[in-house]
């Protein structure tokens, strides 16, 4: 589970963004469907890594953003459920979402030259600080 590494990134990011400004109440995290993150593992890792930091009391909220693709060649738009990835392929995309271009092709024209419009990876949308 490299979710641990992503959790570390989120914790550092929140620490960087909030400076020395006291406790963190809520962290809102957008998780792209493409990366197929295990949310339970991510939540657990965030809990472990928060201990003794200003995030100790924080609530972590997750929003999973559906992946959406748009073909640069023919304009077709589609979603991940239309694509079928093998297990190894899913694992590769789990680590580096851009590798979707190695495994998925436009269902209309067969091109791998498409844009990942939504649902790529992990993003911190907002942070709420504790009052007072």
């Amino acid at each position: 589970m490299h979710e641990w590494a992503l959790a570390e990134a989120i914790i550092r990011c929140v620490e960087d963004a909030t400076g020395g400004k006291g406790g963190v109440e809520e962290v809102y995290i957008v998780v792209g469907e493409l990366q197929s993150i295990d949310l339970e593992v991510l939540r657990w890792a965030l809990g472990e890594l928060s201990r003794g930091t200003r995030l100790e009391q924080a609530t972590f909220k997750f929003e999973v953003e559906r992946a959406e693709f748009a073909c640069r060649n023919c304009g077709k738009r589609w979603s991940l459920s239309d694509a079928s990835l093998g297990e190894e392929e899913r694992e590769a995309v789990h680590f580096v979402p851009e590798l979707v271009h190695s495994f998925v092709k436009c269902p209309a024209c067969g091109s791998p030259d498409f844009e990942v419009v939504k649902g790529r990876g992990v993003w911190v949308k907002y942070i709420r600080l504790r009052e007072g």
Partner: protein
Amino acid sequence: MDPRLSVIGERLEEVARIIVVCSGKGGVGKSLIASLTSLLSSRSGLRVGLLDLDFHGPSCHIILGARKASPLEDRGLVPPTVAGVRLMSLAFLAGDKPIPLRGADVTNALLELLAITRWGRLDLLIVDSPPGMGEEILDVARILRRAEALLVTTPSPLSLSTVSRLVQLLKSLRTPIVGVLENMRREEEGEVAREARRWGVRYLGWLPYDPEIEAAIGDPARLLSTQLARRLGEALREAGILR
């Protein structure tokens, strides 16, 4: 906020030195020299990592004979150790499939790799770069601010013209340049030493065209026993990269 940017510094905290092998020009021997430098470093007792940033044409895993290797998922990605070198390459994840990334995707893939790869303690991280002066060069300069450039050129005016552009670019990016290696020299004399002086870049010497190299690709022990490896070792010691 992009969480990856915050953790990259920490991932490289225990890496003492970062050297990017680059040229701007393709086919001058960047990957071979990056791979051989890693092997030589490991043999001389250094803890060394090798990051293949040529996403479109990854080569280091072939040179080191590691086509079948793969990273371990443990609180991130732990690079496999190949002939003493911790090697990370997208080829481990994409296999033999094409990796057709546009520039913005290259930046994303680079950030992702840097955010999740656990190099551990390294004396030296060698970064192999693709040709060109796009995302890979600009982002390495932007994100890995400590990185130093080791330039590779052949004596051809086609290579010199491009390396000269890269030197100007690296100067404006304030990336320190360790020096320039002349590779695949066949003639008695070349312009490279003179050009290097004109650029204000240290000339690190020349490496011969070695007809035995192709047959040694994929075989680290054999690579280390080539004349090229011996010559490269001397140049790297001279340059202060190896002791």
